[in-house]
């Protein structure tokens, strides 16, 4: 028997519960870390289970069938998929140049005093909830488009052979184009803030050298900054795309909920998320509900791929900046 000095035995006694706490705390963090992975898995599994009825009835052709008829219980996902892709495409065509402009302005032109307030103001656009964009879109933006913008588009672009089909038909005010434009405003803050962040990772040395050679600001952006940050910029764009595809309420209010594919961008349509928001509580039969859940699964799949790709690119960008 060795006499342990009382002080150290006290330390040992303390260590017991402390050690236990350590283990517990660590396990808790690990448990919830795994919980996140489980959550994603759970979402995927629940959607797959929910979609089985529709899948067994329609099979793969569900993806390219353009019928959506609750009365005869025939469903297909083509129309909402088309609407989702089309509105997101418009959002990107309009949103990317805008976001790029905002990012360039904030990083290159803006007086330092204004930098923060301006960044916050643009990011506030991201804070405004989807539903607010929705009612604003329905009550303010769509009537404005119907009265002024769409007639102009029909009268000008509508007469150009080829391009004209995109701007044919009566100006309803609500439709694919309106939804796309609202989405463009909604993704602007996301894309521009990421662009701004990656622009700021460019080593000052590169910038200064280019300026030293007599480049204009635009040439520095175009030939130095963009090539250096292209992965991050594309990542930011993909993130905006993923957001646009999943947007629900804003689109539901202004797209017109029509299960149809028209060549005209002015025509009403529907997206996956707006179809879900509109029809989920009232799908009467198991097949109908299951078809809607299958739409959800498709949306989950598409957005997961897009967001994962975006994330991957941004991580690569970070490594480049760090290394």
């Amino acid at each position, binding site marked *: 028997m060795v006499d342990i000095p009382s002080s150290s035995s006290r330390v040992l006694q303390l260590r017991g519960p402390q050690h236990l706490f350590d283990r517990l705390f660590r396990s808790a963090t690990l448990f919830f870390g795994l919980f996140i992975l489980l959550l994603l898995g759970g979402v995927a599994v629940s959607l797959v289970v929910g979609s089985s009825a529709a899948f067994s009835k329609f099979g793969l052709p569900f993806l390219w069938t353009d019928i959506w008829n609750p*009365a005869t219980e025939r469903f297909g996902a083509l129309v909402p998929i088309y609407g989702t892709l089309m509105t997101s495409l418009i959002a990107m065509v309009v949103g990317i140049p805008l976001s790029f402009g905002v990012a360039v302005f904030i990083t290159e032109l803006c007086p330092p005093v204004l930098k923060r307030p301006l960044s916050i103001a643009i990011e506030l656009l991201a804070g405004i909830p989807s539903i607010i964009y929705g009612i604003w879109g329905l009550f303010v933006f769509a009537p404005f488009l119907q009265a002024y913008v769409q007639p102009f588009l029909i009268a000008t672009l509508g007469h150009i052979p080829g391009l004209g089909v995109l701007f044919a038909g009566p100006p309803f005010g609500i439709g694919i184009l309106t939804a796309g434009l609202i989405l463009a405003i909604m993704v602007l803050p996301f894309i521009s803030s990421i662009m701004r962040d990656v622009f700021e990772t460019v080593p000052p040395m590169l910038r200064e050298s280019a300026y030293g050679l007599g480049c204009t600001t635009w040439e520095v952006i175009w030939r130095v900054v963009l090539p250096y940050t292209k992965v991050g910029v594309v990542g930011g764009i993909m993130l905006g795309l993923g957001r646009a595809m999943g947007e629900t309420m804003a689109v539901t209010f202004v797209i017109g909920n029509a299960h149809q594919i028209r060549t005209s961008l002015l025509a*009403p349509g529907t997206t996956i998320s707006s179809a879900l928001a509109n*029809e989920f509580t009232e799908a009467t039969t198991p097949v109908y*509900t299951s078809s809607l859940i299958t739409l959800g699964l498709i949306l989950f799949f598409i957005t997961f791929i897009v967001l994962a790709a975006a994330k991957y690119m941004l991580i690569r960008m970070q490594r480049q900046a760090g290394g």
Partner: protein
Amino acid sequence: MNALSRKLIGAAFVGAISLTAVGAQAADISGAGSTFAYPILSKWAEAYKAKANVGMNYQSIGSGGGIKQINAKTVDFGATDMPLEQKDLDGPGLAQFPIIMGGIVPVINVKGIDAGKLKLTGKILADIYLGMISNWNDKAIAAINPGLKLPDLAIAPVYRSDGSGTTFNFTYYLAEESPEWKDKIGVNTAVQFPQGIGGKGNEGVSAFTSRTDGAIGYVEYAYAKQNKLAYALVQNKEGAFPEPNLKSFQAAAANADWAHATGFKVILANQPGKDSWPMTASTWALVYKNQDKADIGKSVLTFFDYAYKNGQPAAESLDYVPMPDNVVKLIEESWAKDVKGDGKALWP
């Protein structure tokens, strides 16, 4: 900074306390379904809450939704504008009874044409929704509206994007008047409209119609009136064009034979009679014949009893047609026979 986090924690604490302090409220009841009957049901619910202190929470999610949710037992009653077939009632063990009647009117948004000035026939309406008539100055419309100045303006048909009894009654009338409609589109709570804009609920159709130049939609009369939308007249079975109002809805309802219809299944669309409004409709409530919770079942019946007996003025103020007393008597007799809880009849 610390004060702020303390405040946040305090707020969370108060929230938690208020949740634990939740007592059992009086047996509130919930219903969902028809948007057609929503305004009157929420009006009745408000009055009933004030009188009996029982909340009847009704959510307008469309008739299809009402049928779905009562089948899933997420609500205590469903409300549908399309009566269910006997087999669909017997499967889950449901009883149905009518609660209110009203009219569906076509509404238009055409500058220069006021309410009640434009006449339409069932065939023209069907052709508009089929996309065969696409401009307001079409010959067919001009032919029955001599003297009315019709603009050169594209027609934007607005329909219901959700499963709806209003659509059922509307398409029922169109199919009666247009063979082509019957073949191509059919009659249902949701059909595949060949073109146009879909609005969710009567609310959505009203909103889209009032916001779109050249639009035509079909909504429950209360919505048209509240929204000050211009309605069009529709030709009835006798070839007349009655004004849509309580009188013409009642005329259509008066001809209905409730006593001999199984499950109170009477379609009020296109009823005979010179003064009958051709697109009259009613809403049915769906309840389980065997109530899992007797007190809830009793609560639902007591609510409707109150609505039948005290809710007429509210109904008429919103331009609905209340169920006539003799029909109410039939309905309450059927309750006494059909609706049970704990093995006993819940009514009276």
